């Protein structure tokens, strides 16, 4: 009897895996595009701002820009340099993982590529059932494919924590939907220690937690929904003890020209001509800013829960209150609702194919821009 039950269970798992086999395939396809383009740039492309360390590695291009800062934290810990760009602006989970893999004998660049790309696979595997739980299987499939080949999705393969955060968000939300609150708390805390955007997941999870009736479970649920706040506090506590500056990460951000003010968005718009004159690539971020807003509207129209759309809007709009549009395109990757909006727009076969083709082409183009501009 037991043998029959085990066999039935194994068959069910095997069937589930077969049914989801398309996810690793799309992941592999998307990553192949990114990695092959990065390798092509290594052999034949422009060097531009690439440093020696990044030129010597076949995929070193994907370890450039902020990847250097994460490697620096991993190798040497945090050091605040008041008034200058310094590493407390970069959250600790990703460098912690780099350091752990480095201890096993991997180079920091290789460790970063491994963590980011595997985390994306995990993120896609979690994002599909999360989306399915909120919409339907068709939309979930399209949204997952779009994440795998999104034009700015090359960041998911870089030494950046975005794929890790998307994994934490998708898996954490899924755990919360399945009422596994302790797992959700751990994942959301981990995600916040990788990037602060995870904090905004509190918005959709809080109503979920408040709907729980049993007092014991309700306490766990509230704890899970607010776990990102505690994780952020733990980073502040660490910076306070290590650098004597609990707000070191916000202070370090200022050296990148980011300073949050109530009129920051106005400042960002006013300063746009100057920003474009200094670095015209900021227009890419402005375009993505508008695209994300449009996608969030589309997601809402498709029936996405308001709290999820609001969380996405905060992820996209809040950074502009620092007075800059720079990197909004990358930040928006952490707004799942934007992908749901895109999937809603790709409902017809023709539009779906168009989005896929355009995404793949823009993904290649995005990697080609890396020697010149940070994402």
């Amino acid at each position, binding site marked *: 009897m037991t043998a029959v039950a085990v066999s039935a269970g194994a068959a069910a798992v095997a069937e589930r895996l077969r049914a989801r086999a398309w996810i690793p395939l799309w992941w592999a396809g998307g990553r192949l595009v990114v990695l092959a383009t990065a390798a092509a740039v290594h052999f034949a492309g422009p060097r531009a701002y690439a440093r020696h360390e990044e030129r010597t590695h076949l995929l070193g291009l994907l370890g450039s820009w902020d990847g250097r800062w994460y490697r620096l934290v991993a190798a040497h810990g945090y050091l605040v340099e008041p*008034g200058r760009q310094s590493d407390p602006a970069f959250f600790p989970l990703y460098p912690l993982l780099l350091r752990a893999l480095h201890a096993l004998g991997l180079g920091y660049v290789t460790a970063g590529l491994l963590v980011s790309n595997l985390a994306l696979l995990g993120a896609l595997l979690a994002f599909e059932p999360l989306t399915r739980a909120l919409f339907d299987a068709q939309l979930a499939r399209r949204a997952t494919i779009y994440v795998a080949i999104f034009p700015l999705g090359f960041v998911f393969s870089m030494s950046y924590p975005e794929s890790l955060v998307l994994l934490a968000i998708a898996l954490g939300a899924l755990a919360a939907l399945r009422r596994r609150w302790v797992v959700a708390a751990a994942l959301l*805390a981990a995600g916040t*220690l990788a990037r602060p955007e995870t904090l905004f997941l509190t918005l959709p999870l809080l109503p979920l937690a408040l709907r729980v009736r049993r007092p014991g479970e309700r*306490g766990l649920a*509230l704890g899970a929904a607010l*776990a990102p*706040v505690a994780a952020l506090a733990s980073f502040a506590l660490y910076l306070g*003890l*290590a650098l004597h500056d609990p707000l070191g990460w916000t202070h370090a951000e200022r050296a990148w020209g980011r300073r949050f003010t109530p009129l920051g968005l106005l400042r960002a718009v006013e300063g746009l001509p100057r920003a474009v004159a200094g670095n015209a690539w900021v227009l890419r971020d402005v375009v993505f800013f508008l695209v994300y807003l449009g996608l969030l509207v589309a997601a809402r129209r498709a029936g996405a829960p308001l709290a999820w759309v609001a969380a996405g809007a905060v992820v996209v709009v809040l950074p502009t209150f620092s007075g800059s549009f720079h990197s909004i395109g990358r930040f928006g990757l952490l707004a799942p609702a934007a992908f749901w909006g895109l999937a809603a727009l790709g409902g017809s076969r023709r539009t779906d194919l168009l989005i896929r083709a355009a995404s793949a082409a823009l993904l290649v183009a995005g990697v080609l821009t890396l020697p010149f501009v940070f994402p």
Partner: protein
Amino acid sequence: MRVAAIAGVVLAVTLTAGFALQAAGLPPAARADVVAAKAAEWLRGYRYATSTLLVAGRTLHGRCFHGWFGGRLLRTERGTILELPGASVRTLPHRLVADGLPPWLRPEDALVLAGCPQVLSARLDTLALGAATPVERATAWGRPVLAVRFRRLTLLVDPATDRPLGVELPGARSRFRLVRLTAKLERRLEALR
């Protein structure tokens, strides 16, 4: 009440675990990096330094100013100007102009030796990022100092405050003093050409 207590426990555990993970997993910054970063911070608080350079057996006295110069009214150029006996070095946007400098003293070295605040702080900012070099107790000019030995540059700082006091380069050594600018002094320096 029970709900709040359980939620509080979850938050407390998250806070503690998050902190423990960072404390156990991340290395503290190396002493040399911290000293260099603090010295750079000191330098950023000043725009004027006076110095004594010992190069190739000769002693030179210099003064270095960062700001506008070219005349109070004209204020044509902004950058760093180092004045040495019979010579000067100016850093302007994308340019380094040296006049009358002896052949045995490179302009970049002169600016660093003279403790020119902007130039030296920028150099230290770069060196501070993961240099992990040794810091030694030493004696210079009859007083105890900390010596941070980077490649090709040794920084001498006050052991109590990390205030930069001097620099050693291969074959050269200097001592400098960071001076707070007064309005009168600034007017005089702005008139430099």
